[in-house]
Structures are given as C-alpha cells and as structure tokens.
C-alpha cells in the first residue's frame, strides 16, 4: 500500500504509523455524559468501506496526516495534513 504524503509524495506503508480513528469528536471536557465519553474512548464503528484515519509519516517528514481509506480495498481516497484537515482547509 502506498500513501501519497502531501509533503514527500507516494511512500511505502512501512514508513507510516497508524494513529487512530479520525472521526471521533471529543466531548466537552466538563461533560458528565458517560455514554458520550464511553463512545469517544472505547467504541469504534469499524466500517466496511471508507474510513477517516490519522496516520503519521513517522519514517519520513514526521507529519501527522488525515487519510481517507477504503477498509475493504485499501484504496486511498484522500490524504491531507492533519492540521489543515482539522481546521477545515484542504491541504
């Protein structure tokens, strides 16, 4: 599997490390909603299809990325710097 790093270009999967599900939204830190915290910390939907994930180009430029990957085919739909993706900008 190749991931097209926005800084380095296409690189082998071995250079990247998975950093978790990027679809979660952190509840308000003051929230006492137990279910919301349980979902945030433990529950994962594990979809068969397109999934939004954090990856780090640990063996390269060390940038944190948001990758949209199809969990069935490993097709990479999009890759963006996490900083830009989280602030709503396209990278």
């Amino acid at each position: 599997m190749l991931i097209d790093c926005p800084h380095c270009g296409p690189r082998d999967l071995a250079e990247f490390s998975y950093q978790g599900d990027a679809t979660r939204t952190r509840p308000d830190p003051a929230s006492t909603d137990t279910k919301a915290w349980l979902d945030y910390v433990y529950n994962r939907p594990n979809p068969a299809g397109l999934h939004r994930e954090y990856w780090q180009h640990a063996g390269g430029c060390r940038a944190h990325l948001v990758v949209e990957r199809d969990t069935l085919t490993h097709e990479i739909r999009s890759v963006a710097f996490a900083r830009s993706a989280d602030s709503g900008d396209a990278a």
Partner: protein
Amino acid sequence: MVERASPLGGGFRPGSHGDFADGNGVTISEVLKGSIVEANAWPGKEKALAESISATCRLTLPALPGNGAASREGTCAFNIGPGRFLVSGMDEALAGDIIAAIGDETGTVTDLSHGRTVLSIEGPRVEWVLAKLFALDFSLTAFPVHAGRATAHHDVFVQIQRRGEKRFEFYVFRSFARAFAKTLCRAAEDVGYTIR
C-alpha cells in the same frame, strides 16, 4: 587535541571489498562534519527560516518540499519535513552561528552534531545499490543534485541529500551508524566497493 571517535568501529576498514570483476562500483566513506543542526520553523515562518539559513550559510535555500542547497564552502542544507531543515558543514562554529541567527520568533534549532553520523557513497553504481535499500526514485530527474529526502530503512531513520550526480550523503543516528554502514557495504558487495 582530542580526536573524535568514529562510531563505525573496526569493521569499517579502508580498502577494497566485494566483487571487483567490473571494477569499483561505489566508494563509501565517513564524512566528519563539524556541525549538524536541525532547524524547525513555527507555522507560517517557513520562508523566514529558509532565508535566515540562506544568509547565515551563504547559500540559496528554497522553502519547498525536498529542496536543498550547498555553498561553495561545502555547507549544505535541505528540507526534511514541513518547515524542517537539516543544515551541516565542516566548520564547528556553524551550529552556534545558526542558533544565534534564528530568533525565537522564527523557530527552533537543535544541535545534532554529536548525534548524527554522515556517510558518503559515490560511484557509477550508486543508484543501483541504493535502490536495493530504499523505495525511492534515485534517478537524477526525480532526485536532483542538492535535493533531500527523509526516509527509513527497517526502522533506521535516514536523511539523504544528493551532493552530486553520482554522490549521496546519508545522515543516520550515531547509535545506528555501525549497523547502517554494514548494511550499505553488504548491499554494495556485488558491485565492488572501496572504503575510504
């Protein structure tokens, strides 16, 4: 004067090794750099950092992914990540000059002179040897002279700069340098290599 000890050990012996049926494929040597620093820009300050490095090192460093430059004196710099540059030179005072030149408002500088080992590999078969180790395109068009790449070989992080058409420099963690040099030599055995 205290002599600097090489981390490469006794196994890195000067001389000719491997299969010389077709001549010397590559020459491998350690480059004893006086200064190696990593400079990181705060977000939005990438251009200012590149300009500051350019002025201090007397070179022209574009703040673009993978780009690099070298000065006439042999000081060189290249991009290793978003807003991150590796700068090195033979002069031991260079690290201090760069730290003094880059202000807190632009970014941070870390002196890695003691923490990295630089290996040079050059020769007619250099691209062929390196293609065994890294999933990178080492052709001159994809990887021009002075350009840099940050990559890894089996979890050993390596930063590579092309210093000539047939010459590359590798920056590896000092504690991994001996193992990496061994790997490099092993990969060059079938083309014949000389250690200098």
